[in-house]
């Protein structure tokens, strides 16, 4: 029935809006400051920034292997 379809749709919308309304929000300036601080503090643990020591790199170029 088209009637109950609309009702279900509306109920789902309300549920979705309730979820969205309860999301914790902070100001953009605070969020961007937090992000910058996180990146600054954790930069030293990031292999993409700091590089991977050659001894631990499984993908480094190896000398050709010859099988006797």
């Amino acid at each position, binding site marked *: 029935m088209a009637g109950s379809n609309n009702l279900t749709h509306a109920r789902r919308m309300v549920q979705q809006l309730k979820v969205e309304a309860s999301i914790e929000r902070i*100001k*953009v*300036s*605070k969020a*961007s*400051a937090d992000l*910058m*601080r996180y990146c*600054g503090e954790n930069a030293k643990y990031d292999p993409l920034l700091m590089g991977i020591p050659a001894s631990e790199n499984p993908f480094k170029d190896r000398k050709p292997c010859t099988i006797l």
Partner: protein
Amino acid sequence: MAMRQTPLTCSGHTRPVVDLAFSGITPYGYFLISACKDGKPMLRQGDTGDWIGTFLGHKGAVWGATLNKEATKAATAAADFTAKVWDAVTGDEVLTLAHKHIVKSVNFTQDSNFLLTGGNDKVLRIYDLSKPEADPQEIAGHTSAIKKALWCNNDQQILSAADDKTIRLWDKNTQEAVHTLSFDASVTSMEYIPDGEILVITYGRTIAFYNAHSLDLIKTVDAPASIHSASLHPEKDFFVAGGDDFKLYKYDYTTKEEMESYKGHFGPIHTVRFSPDGELYASGSEDGTLRLWQTAVGKTYGLWKCVLPEELSSENSEVLYCPPAEIKA
């Protein structure tokens, strides 16, 4: 010895930003509203640029937006032939005022009781917000689309700029034009400074300052490029202007000298306004962003903090600005 400054870039709009307005200074600070062609005007905290909310309801590009002094009400003018009044605290639409054509400009009186609108139907309308169903008072006279309409001289007179290349000063009660200024080119923007009764007008590459009572010319200044908008500092020390070359120019009002210019926007600047305390100015551009710039580069204010370079060598005597790690909410 120009110091580099990092503007606060406010993103969120998806189309060009065509108008912006500040509220007065309220106990909660001051606020900024931006009008955008995406139809969704946004309210932001004035000193940090933090997004507070978006007014949803218009069905077309929003050409004009304004806040009342206390930042409790907002008004917007749109291409959907309506002007809307909003509750700026809750974001609810309070009133929709139907017009016969695109509405370009909205302005509250000081007591927020009356709203002035002007647009492409060439008629100025005054709405009594305490009697919204009543017909507005209409003032006709312009021969083409009105770009900007402002209350002035203690809300007793109205200034309007139109595409007919005139600016007219009207008496609110007699509804007659008291003065008319004619130009060779279309006026691109108009700002009224109540304290000092100065009118700031831009056209072509010129920024002109007039006495708001007599419409006598005070002075004109020419810029390197076509200017779309200019704003005078509350203390009348400087004015800023922006236009087609994407740059923001800052001039000394007394000497008319260009002091600084700033690059940052990726498109022509459509609107620029000083904050009510004069500590920063905001610019809105074709690139869809608003940028907040410091007036006194070097001062700790809002999100700005003075950062000196690590080594003070003779060449590197700049002072860098960046938002600090700690922000007090």
